[in-house]
Structure formats: C-alpha cells, structure tokens
C-alpha cells in the first residue's frame, strides 16, 4: 500500500518543463476527447448540436443534484447516499401536489402557470424539512462516531426512502403531469422546445442563487468557515449544528427543484430512479472536485454531455463504462478533481 502510494506520488511529481507528468496525462486525455468530439461535430454538425442540447439538459439536472452531494461532503465529509432518493421523493411529492390542481396536460393554461409557481417553493421547502430531519435522526447522533457509521446509515436512509416511495405509489413508473408549454422549434436542423430552455435556465438561476448565498451571506460565510475547520469555527461562535442543518436544507432545496424539473421534463419517474441518478451526480461531484461548488456544477454538465455523446455515438450499453472510465482517468491524473477538492482541514 505504502510503496504503491509513494509510487503514485513519485509518478505525479515527475516534472517536465514546468508541468508534472500527471498534468500532461490529464491534458492529453482532455485534448483527445475534444478532438474526437470536434471530428464528429464537423462530420454531422446538426446531429452534434442536437446531442449537445440533450446533454446540457441532462447535465443541468445532474448538476443540481451534485451540488447537494458536494456541499454535504464539503462540510462533514459524508457521502450522503440518500441524496439521490431525496431527489426522487421530491418528484413523487411534486406529482402528488399537482394532482390537487386540475392542470391541463399537453397545453399551457393560466392554472398550469399558477401550479408551476406554487409547486417549486412548496416541494423545495418540504424536501428541505425532510432532509433536515434525516440529518437530525440519522447523521447528527453519529457525528463523532467512526466515519463508516454515518455512511451505513446513509445507505440505510436511501433504502428507507425507496421503500417509502415503493409502498406509497407502487413499483410501476409514476406519471408526472406534462404541464409546461409544448412549444418547440427547429433552428438550423436542431430541434428543441421551451422545456429544454426551461430546464437549463431554471438550473442556471438556482446555481447562481446558491453561489450568491454561499459567498455573500452570513450563513454562507458560516458554512464556508465550518467546512474549512469545524473546531475553529465553533470557537469563533458559529453554531455548528445549525450550520450543518442549513447545509442539508439547502442541498435538499436544490434536489427538490431538480426532482420537479426532472418530472416536468421527462414526465415519468420510478422509485429506484434516485439510485442511478444519485450515483452519477455523486460522480459529477467527485469529477469536479468534491466540496467544490462550481466544480460540482461543471462536473454535472460534463457528465451529462458525456452521457449524451456516449449514448448517441458509442451506444447506450457503453455509457456507464464511458462515464466511469473517464472518472478513473481523471482521478488517476488529477485526484483532486477538475477544480480541486475543498474539504475540512485536518
């Protein structure tokens, strides 16, 4: 183990003209991907642009979920496995709330708009509350326990939430009302609709709001301080429990919005959806640099694009292999992720 680790460190520290060998490897990897994609873009521009649109919408949703993983990991070094299921649960709650309105599917009415305006804050707040409760029940009592203990309770929470959804709506796919405007257009052979624009813009606004919150508010500052050094933050008078609860709350707000956006866009969810989506979002967080908020957003987008290009150019059965292959490649050459890790100092 030791010799292996030191061999890896040696490998990374070999310098060549100002850059380490690992950096060369990383840039070669990136350049290869870009060249291959550019070749496809030249070969069939329309197809490339179309796949790009799908990749961006997919990636925007992954980014929203990845933010929740990265924030929690950044502050308490816990891989919150239940986060993907929090995302799915919000779609379940969203479709239930929409069921209370007599929304019109397939066209856009005034009532649809009202439902749309109401559903986002309501679902986000409910999910925020649920996630704070999850933290209080399953994670806080174990905060000083060995690291494995909360990891196991997180897995347990994940199965618990899946079980709740299974018992609630059954095993089959659950329909989510299709209430967005159905307007679509074709620009230069690329087909897209208001739905695609809606997903990308909503996600961008949420990420911008999060960035503002983290960087410009008192609570955001407290979160950054806690993430940097919990003990020192506590000595400075920061209420650690409250700050960590706030982190879970905000993470769930984003996952809640992500779940509703996912439902509005794809119109079908099922109780196990969170497992796969969560795993990919977590990968995106690691890819971008765990604990790093812009990293998670960019990681989500890149993973979404990778999935789309792989589905389209290589084949659906290879997509998971491609995503995780890239992850392994990136981590070997750059273990801190694209934009660098930000985790508590020891």
């Amino acid at each position, binding site marked *: 183990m030791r010799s292996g680790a030191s061999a890896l460190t040696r490998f990374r520290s070999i310098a060549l003209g100002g850059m380490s060998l690992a950096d060369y490897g990383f840039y070669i990897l990136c350049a290869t991907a870009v060249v291959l994609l550019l070749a496809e873009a030249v070969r069939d521009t329309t197809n490339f642009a179309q796949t790009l649109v799908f990749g961006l919408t997919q990636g925007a949703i992954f980014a929203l979920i990845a933010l929740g993983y990265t924030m929690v990991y950044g502050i308490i070094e816990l891989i919150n496995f239940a986060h993907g299921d929090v995302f799915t649960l919000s779609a379940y709650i969203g479709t239930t709330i929409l069921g209370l309105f007599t929304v019109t599917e397939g066209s856009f009415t005034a009532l649809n708009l009202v439902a749309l305006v109401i559903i986002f804050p309501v679902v986000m707040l409910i999910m925020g509350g649920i996630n704070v409760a999850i933290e209080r029940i399953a994670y806080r009592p174990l905060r000083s326990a060995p690291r494995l203990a909360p990891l196991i309770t997180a897995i347990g929470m994940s199965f618990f939430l899946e079980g709740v959804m299974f018992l609630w709506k059954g095993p089959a796919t659950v329909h989510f009302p299709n209430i967005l405007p159905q307007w679509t257009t074709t620009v230069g052979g690329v087909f897209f609709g208001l739905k695609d624009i809606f997903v990308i813009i909503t996600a961008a606004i949420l990420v911008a709001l999060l960035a503002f919150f983290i960087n410009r508010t008192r609570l955001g500052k407290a979160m950054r301080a806690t993430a940097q050094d919990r003990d020192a933050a506590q000595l400075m008078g920061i209420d650690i429990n409250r700050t960590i609860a706030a982190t879970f709350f905000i993470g769930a707000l984003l996952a809640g919005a992500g779940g509703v956006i996912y439902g509005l866009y794809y*119109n079908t969810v099922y109780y196990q959806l969170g497992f796969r989506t969560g795993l990919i979002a977590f990968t995106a967080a690691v890819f971008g640099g765990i604990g790093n908020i812009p990293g998670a957003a960019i990681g989500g987008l890149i993973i979404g694009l990778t*999935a789309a290009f792989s589905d389209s150019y290589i084949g659906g059965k290879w997509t998971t292999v491609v995503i995780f292959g890239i992850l392994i490649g990136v981590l070997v050459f750059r273990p801190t992720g694209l934009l660098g890790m930000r985790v508590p100092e020891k």
Partner: protein
Amino acid sequence: MVRARGLVVLTVAIMVAVACGNTGGGGGGGSKGTIKIGSDFPVCTTGGQSTSNGVKFAVDQKNAAGGVEGFNIAYQSFDDCRQGSYNADAGVANVRQMLDDSAFMGMIGPYNSAVAKAEIPIAAPKNFVMISPANTNPCLTKDIASCSTAYHPQDLRAGNPNNYWRVVTTDDYQGPAMADYMYKQANIKTVAILDDSTVFGVGISGAFEDEFKKLGGTVVKHQEYKKDQQGTQFQSLLQSMHTASALYVGGTDDQNICIPRAQMKQIGWTAPFGGGDGIETTDCIDQASGNETGILATSAGADATQVPGAKDTIAKFRQAFTGANDFGGYTMQAYDAANILMTAIGNAIKANGGSMPTRKQVRDAMAKITTFQGVIGNYGFDQNGDTTLKIVSIYEVKTGLSDTDVKASTGVCGKKLANACFVWKTQFDFAKSS
C-alpha cells in the same frame, strides 16, 4: 417470556394459515377432497394481476359447476415480483413451495420467460405440470439456431419427460409478425431497434431484425440499454436512431421500454413505434404519456375478443371482475390454460379409478391432450409442449375512444388516459402460411 413468544408465533402461524386457506378457490365443488393448483405471475404489475384473474375465474366457474370429477379445486396465486418487477429467484421459491405441498397438481405460469427458464429445471424432475399463458421465448421448448447463444430446452429438462406447455406461440413468430406488418403492410423500409438487454428483449428484437433484413429492409441502428443504468433519459439514444422510419423495441414495460415513445415526441421524431407483447400493457400507455397514439404491439396468440366463441366468456368475466384493469391481453389465455390443466387433472382422476391422482399421472394425462376447445381457439400441443395455434395478433393504441369503443377494445387502457386503449388491428397466422 419464552413461552409467551412461542404463543405469539403460534398465533401468527395460525392466522397466516387461515389467511392462506381463504385465498384458495371459491367454495362449492366436489366432496372427495381438494386438489390445489397454483399460479406464478408478477401480480404487482397490471399484466400479471389481470392474468391471474383469468385463472381465478376459470377455477371459480369449475367449482360452481361441481368441481373436477368430484374434487374441489383450490387456487392459490403466487407472486414472483421483487421490488416491482418479475424475479426468477422469487419464481423458483414459489415453485418450491408448491412442490412441498403434495396437494398441488400443477401450476399456471409463469408470465416471464426468464422465470420459466429457472423454474422448469426444478419442476421437471417432480413431474409438476406447468402451463404458461404468456411465455414466448422459443428456447423454452424448441432448440432453434439462436438458442445456442442462450440455452437449450433439453438442458432445462435434464432427461426428465416434458412438464411444460404453453398456450401462446413464440417470439420467433412474434418478432417476424411485426417485421412483416411494418415492411409489407405499413411500407416501412428502414427501422431502428432498441432492446432492454433482457433474455426476452434480446430474443424478440433479434427475431424481428432477422426477418426485417430477410424481407429486404435496412436496420439503421440496434441499440441496447439497461434500466438501472439508463434511468429515464433516452433522447440521445433516440437521436442516434432517428433517421429510421420506425422504431422497434424489444423489452417489457417494467424495464421502462415505453418511455422512449414519450421522448420521441420531445426530440421531434414522428415515426411508428412497435414492440412485442411486453408493451401491450397499461403501464406502457402511461409511460408513453403525450405520445400514446399509434403504439403497435404484437401478442403471441389469437385475440379472444376476435374469436366469436369467446364473447360470452368475456362478458361473464367482466361481470365477475369489474375493475378497469382487471382484464388484460393474457386473461383469456390464462383462462384456457387453467381449463386445460383441470381437464388433465380430470382425466388423471378417471385413469386412477376416481381417486386422487399423482403428479406423474397428471403429467401423463396432460401429454395426451391433443385437441382442446378453448376460448382463444381450437388447438392442441406438439411433443415439445408448443401450441399448434401459430397466430400472432397486432394491436394499436387509439386515443380519444368513446366509452363503447373502450369496452370493445382489449381492455388494456391507460391509467391516466382511460380512453387510450390497445385495439385489435390484424393478425398473422403462421400455421397457414408455412
């Protein structure tokens, strides 16, 4: 304390026993004793539940008419669902449970070919009759060329006499029927294929592909996915296939195979969408939300609603089972299968001088049934256990149906969109053409 716990266990055990006893077939029937038949379906799905209803209906009818040769028939429905979809291990556990109870003389099922593949090897040595109303994988009975990459029927039986029959025909007819329909009748010359990587999905899409190419058509792309890795995001997969003038899907609704139908609309691809009997379901119509119209599905059997003699039985069934999703594409097949099994049991009782037969006697009696007058037609079985009926029906989803049209349809309609139903379109009879 120990004693108290023992008492609790005993109480629970008695309650379970009583509860299980009550799930059996209706009262009445004969007085000589009780013979049990089971069924094994994924009853967590609408398809599995509506199929189980067919067995229950047949058994109730038989008992009301005096049972079988003086014996009362008790029916128990087993569920092979695990976490929302069929599971071969669950099916095996169910069959073992039936084998352990000597009153079980046979079973109807299973619903999914992958489950049958796991169950036949444990049921065959015990001469336990299985009659499936829905299995369509050819390799369960016939050793055709493509079985060399899957499994061989003789390996499943391991030298034991055949214990497995089915009242539907096989995917090597189902896939080609859709290929014939698309190429010859709908005049489609290029297709793309998407399968869900399951035994069923790969088999049926392969049979479709072979036939479509043989007819002279072009397969633009054949993509595969796995449910647990794909989620519900299919646009990019569809994008790579959208130059084709139709999409054929090999798979089942519990693997999300109909979600691509909804997303075809999202990527602006208007083309026919066809598949096997795994998509002739309520869940499929729900998954296709917003793009239900025109989904094409084959079913490996004659449509009971198109057989004049079946009208009466269906009407009676609907009086007994009034739920919107109680009747499905395999309800009448299950009804026939149950009646065939009860006929075999009756013959075995007669052969045994009127007393309780053994499983081997039931199996032997079953092997002797060469003609049977069922609601889905008059047919027999070949020595492999396959039906002589080689009819494949084609259905299409129509939306905006009136209430009378909904009643006249297959009864397989959307949960959300109750007036979107599969309607019989045409049928291919491969027994006549070959």
